[in-house]
Structures are given as C-alpha cells and as structure tokens.
C-alpha cells in the first residue's frame, strides 16, 4: 500500500514553498531558521 506520505515530515498543506526550508531527504523535519545559512550584512558577523 505504500507509505502515508503525510508522515514524512513535510507540511504538504503549506501555502509557502517547501524547498526553501527543506533540510534533507533523510531528515524527519524541515529546517529551522538557525539551520539556514543566510547572506546577512557583514557587520552582523560579530564573532
């Protein structure tokens, strides 16, 4: 019968695109904002 595809950790009803938060084909959940590398202003690279 295959797999219940709603259990793969993707929010299939999301009005937003899924790809921009897609973490990995092997991850059970989407990315969190702190997982996403972002081109922040260089001044923010305080460390």
């Amino acid at each position: 019968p295959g797999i219940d595809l709603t259990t793969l950790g993707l929010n299939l009803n999301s009005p937003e695109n899924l790809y921009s938060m897609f973490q990995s084909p092997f991850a059970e959940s989407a990315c969190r904002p702190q997982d996403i590398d972002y081109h922040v202003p260089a001044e923010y690279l305080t460390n």
Partner: protein
Amino acid sequence: PLGPIQLTKDQHYQLSNLEAAYHHLPHPSDSERMRHFLPRNPCPTPTYYPSATFPHADTVELYQRCSTETLFFIFYYMEGTKAQYLAAKALKKQSWRFHTKYMMWFQRHEEPKQITEEYEQGTYIYFDYEKWGQKKKEGFTFEYRYLE
C-alpha cells in the same frame, strides 16, 4: 505480476556499496557553515519534547513576540543564519539600532539632546554582549556612519 528479476553483477556491487555508505550517512551539519557557537550536537531527548519545527517559525512576527534577551541571544549565537537575520529585523521593529563599530544594539532612552547630520547625542540603553545585560549610557554620541 512480473515477478523478480535477477540482479546483475553491477547491481550487486551497487547494493553492497549502498550498504557500506549506509553506515556513514551525511549529517545535516555537512551542508551548513560551521556553527562555532552553537554546533549541532545531536543528543537523545525525551520523546515528549517538541521536535518538529512549528509552522511560521521563520516569520518576523514570531520573532517579534520573543523577549529582547531572546533576540539578542539569537543574534549573537546564531550568526550568519536566517534566525540572526530575523532577530535583527524584529529588534529594529522595536526601535533598536545596530552600532557597527561596537557591534551592539542601542535604543534611545529619551529624545536625543542633539541631532546633527553626522550624529545624535543623548541617553541610550544598549545591550552589552560581554556582560550580557542591558545598560544605560548617558551623553553617548551615536555617529551615523556606524549606524547599520
């Protein structure tokens, strides 16, 4: 209805390679820049801890509902990520402004005593990331060339 087909030698080779690779799978961190201050350290937590990301986790509105200390934590400890970017946006919406020389966030405590083309001067609250706390600074000159 078609029944199984005999795997070729190549396919057996592929399968054994897959099985070997299965024992050293990629980590999520392999595709992310190094997080010097908050590296991913997968550790088992009780199943009743929330694990999946909640919806709208990446909206400024959600970050605006966080306390300023939380936003400062995100800003300084999640450098170079979307979280830092969202925290900065939320801080700005609460009239904090980033001083690029001191690398600290400032907020007017009252109307500045003096405002010119180059700077404004007065009493400010700022967040000191070294002492990790908010402080008041009187007679501070905020030069606009350091305003992000």
